[in-house]
């Protein structure tokens, strides 16, 4: 299990690392949005603990957006207690939201829960069963929601198969022509 710990406060980050690093095989740290996005791009993480307020007040939101997209169990760990922000983050699909200051056993319990979910999701993926984290706006209609879920599922499996058309088609029980059709439909590109 790998953890990405993102907080702009160096002293706090080192203490948090000390508290939870034994739960992981590897721990990476980032103090700003750029570092965090670089790590997410470079490596596959299982859990991310993200401070909402990095160099700029909402940098953590941008990081969470990317980490959630990359199937990382994202725990927001922030001093921000704004209800509107909490609503937005839940809409985004964060795994947990902890308001600083919290006692370390509570943080550890949240991290342990995230690890448990992530481990089991990985096991399910081997059986070709995927966990999709979706927030749907009913006003936009069923069709739009279906399209979003379809795109999400397709993208997830394509990425997991490293853009291998044959394996993706096999996972989705589809013909290769259909895979090309969806790639074109959703403008998907292999990340360099």
């Amino acid at each position, binding site marked *: 299990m790998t953890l990405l710990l993102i907080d702009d*406060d160096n002293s706090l980050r080192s203490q948090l690392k000390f508290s939870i690093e034994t739960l992981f095989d590897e721990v990476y740290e980032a103090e700003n949005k750029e570092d965090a996005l670089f790590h997410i791009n470079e490596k596959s993480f299982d859990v991310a603990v993200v401070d909402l307020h990095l160099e700029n007040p909402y940098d953590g939101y941008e990081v969470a957006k990317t980490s959630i997209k990359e199937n990382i169990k994202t725990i927001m760990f922030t001093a921000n207690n704004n209800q509107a922000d909490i609503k937005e983050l839940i809409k985004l699909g964060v795994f947990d939201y902890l308001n*600083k*200051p919290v*006692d*370390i056993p509570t943080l550890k319990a949240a991290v342990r829960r995230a690890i448990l979910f992530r481990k089991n999701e990985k096991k399910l993926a081997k059986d070709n069963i995927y966990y999709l984290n979706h927030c749907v706006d009913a006003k936009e209609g069923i069709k739009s929601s279906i399209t979003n879920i379809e795109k999400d599922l397709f993208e997830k499996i394509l990425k997991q198969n490293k853009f291998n058309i044959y394996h993706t088609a096999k996972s989705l029980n589809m013909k290769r022509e259909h895979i090309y059709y969806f790639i074109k439909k959703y403008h998907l590109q292999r990340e360099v």
Partner: protein
Amino acid sequence: MIEEYFAEVLILVGIINLLIIYFIRFEVRKLTNSLGKVIELNKTQHYELESFLTNLESFLFQLQLQDYSYKVYFQNEVIQERKLQKNNIKYSLNETVSSGEYAVHFQVVPLRDIGEQKDKNKMVFNTLILLIHENLHMKVEAINKKFETISKYHTFILHDTKNITQFFQALSYNIEQAETIKEKEQLLDYLQRSINPLYQKSTKLLKLLELNCEEKFYEDKQKIQLEDLLNSILKLYGLGECVRGKGCVIEQEALLYVVFENVIKNIKDKKEKEPALEFKIEIKYLYEKKISIFFEDNGTKIQNIQKVFEPFYTTKKQGLGIGMYKVRTLLHSINADVELKNDPNATVIITLPLRWF
């Protein structure tokens, strides 16, 4: 004969015309040069309104002005002024410009006001007004920018305070959890790396907290024995209890505490610079249902007495220039007032309204 006569007249007219043109050119050049110098002066004074207005005096003759006067207002109170040398003025140009809580009334008395000189006077006056307006605008902009920064800092304060609290929670947990020597060494290593950023963060936070000038006081008004409150603050600052007189008001204690603390802190800072300084605090009942507290010291006089209440005005090296501004803002919010005097000694007078239950 007649033709020769006409030719001579024509030559004469031509020469006169040329002389007039040269004279006008000379006058215009002289005026534009002078205006250019005034603009340059403004630049060398870093577009500071007060110093620009003061130094304008040395350009009076070049601008063909006899005299000028101005009044700079902050919150409708005069903070800087220059009066005319003579009062019986027949002709003058004047205008008031304002921006934010500041206003400037500017008046010029030209040397002459006949013929084309009137146009020149208008040109000079309009240029000066334009410069004053620009300087005033820049001053207000600078102040607004500072206030914006402060409000931005407030969001950071919350974030940083919670982070520091969280740090200590994590640290105490980690100290309890670290059992082996290796773990303890690792914790020590993390801690060593943490100390510097933590110290910087705490210092920054404490400094920012001092800037909190928009405090709101929601507590109920209560009966306050002024001499007790003042003595408790004096004791806190190690200045000894020296309040004369007694007084009682119905007010919000936290608000009065902040006000008195600011004034007493200034006395303490002054005493550090001037160890021989002696001071006294006196409470006096006044007519019209008011009570005054006199903070008087025999140290150096208060510099720039009119400017003390302006935000970010300070004479201290490390000062933020927010203390006395905060004092006046808070006092105005409860219909009280603060006044400064240098005669015979440097004195801060706080006048509170008397209320009854």
